[in-house]
């Protein structure tokens, strides 16, 4: 199985333009996301602004199944948190959702490179991936229900 490495004189190592752009966008987005996550989490811990579910009450119910937890804490599924960003626990979901959106953002920033190059295969792959992730994020797919 172990083969020998091939040394090349023709090709050069390094990242492609789309890879460099993806990496650059990812770098900034990831740092912003993590920083805001930390800030909002500390705000949540100190209760500023007042959370929908007090931190102490979360722990009383975190051993439950998710549907029961949502019922007890009166939290709706899906994007309901986005309508209540004035509450510190829901505010923490903003950077969490942002971190979960970083991949879509990165994919969309490299799309013009593939389109300009008329690289239809990778243009299609980018669009298909974005579609899958947006569909998962949309909340239209069934999740749970036990």
């Amino acid at each position, binding site marked *: 199985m172990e083969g020998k490495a091939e040394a090349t004189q023709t090709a050069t190592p390094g990242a492609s333009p789309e890879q460099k752009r993806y990496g650059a966008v990812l770098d900034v987005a990831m740092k912003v996301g993590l920083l805001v996550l930390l800030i909002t989490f500390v705000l949540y811990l100190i209760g500023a602004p007042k959370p929908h579910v007090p931190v102490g009450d979360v722990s009383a119910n975190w051993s439950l199944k998710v549907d029961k*937890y949502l019922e007890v804490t009166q939290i709706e599924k899906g994007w309901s948190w986005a309508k209540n960003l004035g509450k510190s626990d829901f505010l923490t979901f903003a950077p969490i959702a942002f971190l979960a959106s970083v991949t879509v953002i990165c994919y969309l920033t490299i799309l013009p490179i593939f389109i300009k190059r008329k690289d239809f295969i990778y243009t299609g792959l980018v669009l298909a991936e974005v579609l899958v992730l947006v569909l998962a994020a949309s909340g239209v797919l069934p999740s749970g229900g036990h």
Partner: protein
Amino acid sequence: MSKRCTLFFIIALFILMAIFAAGMVQAWTGDASPANPGGADSAIPWWGWPLILLVVTFFMGILAVLGGVGGAVLYTPIIGGFFPFGMDFVRGAGLFVALAGSLAAGPGLLKKGLADLRLAMPVALIASTTAVMGAMVGLALSDAIINTAMGIAILAIVVIMFLAKKSEYPEVGKADALSSALRINGVYHEPSSGKDIDWKIHRTIHGLILFVGIGFMAGMFGLGAGWANVPVLNLVMGAPLKVSVATSKFLLATTDTSAAWMYLNAGAVIPMIVVPSIIGIMMGSLVGVKILAKSKPSAVRAVVLTMLVFAGVRALLKGTGIWK
């Protein structure tokens, strides 16, 4: 210690203090236990568990780096087995732990040309699609079934990790038609030999089929997928080991993003569990990288495998009701 490492320690210390402060404020104002314990059967106050979680995930992050595994494969079974959190929340947090680790590592791996976007994109599309399906199935099953299935899966992973060999530069005679059409090949600089390594892949269809299962399991159990990505990319598809490891780490962000959204939309994400876990694992990873050069790989690997066996058996016994 690097500036980045120091910064993370300061942030973690700040969070520790904030958790303590919030706990003490609640204790003084009378909002704390027994009304607000650390879980249904727990005598520990609520703020004790996030603190323990931070410390445990810190050591987990060190071991994950030294043992060459992603954090989530250790995180989900161990936290699920020994913490008072519901499995839905543990799996949701596991996916965000894997996602955050991948997002943090991605820029460096891409810029150096070690992670390959063309290699990652087709497999990521397959894995992220099936991860959605896995998440839908996982969220619909009871904790008992999930724990039993995860216990079996973890023990199978241990066998794979124990038996799978690694090939630094797999021999790929001729690139297959699909990888040629997708132009999946590349060159990276290997500092140890001073050479530029020219690579291509084969058996692309086989690899893509395997990623159907990898994505499904990642979504269903919240395990990440690094444990399976590397052997498939390296041994099946023939990518060099460094490219496989880097691309695996990078593509976790895409695979786990789709499943993470499913858990987030289902309400199975609790910031009090997710945030300390992300901080702990990332801090541990930074320290792990520092001591990687001085560690004995075989000893660390044995520790990681032992922990996985223990976690797998625990999940299996918990699922079957033998050890609640």
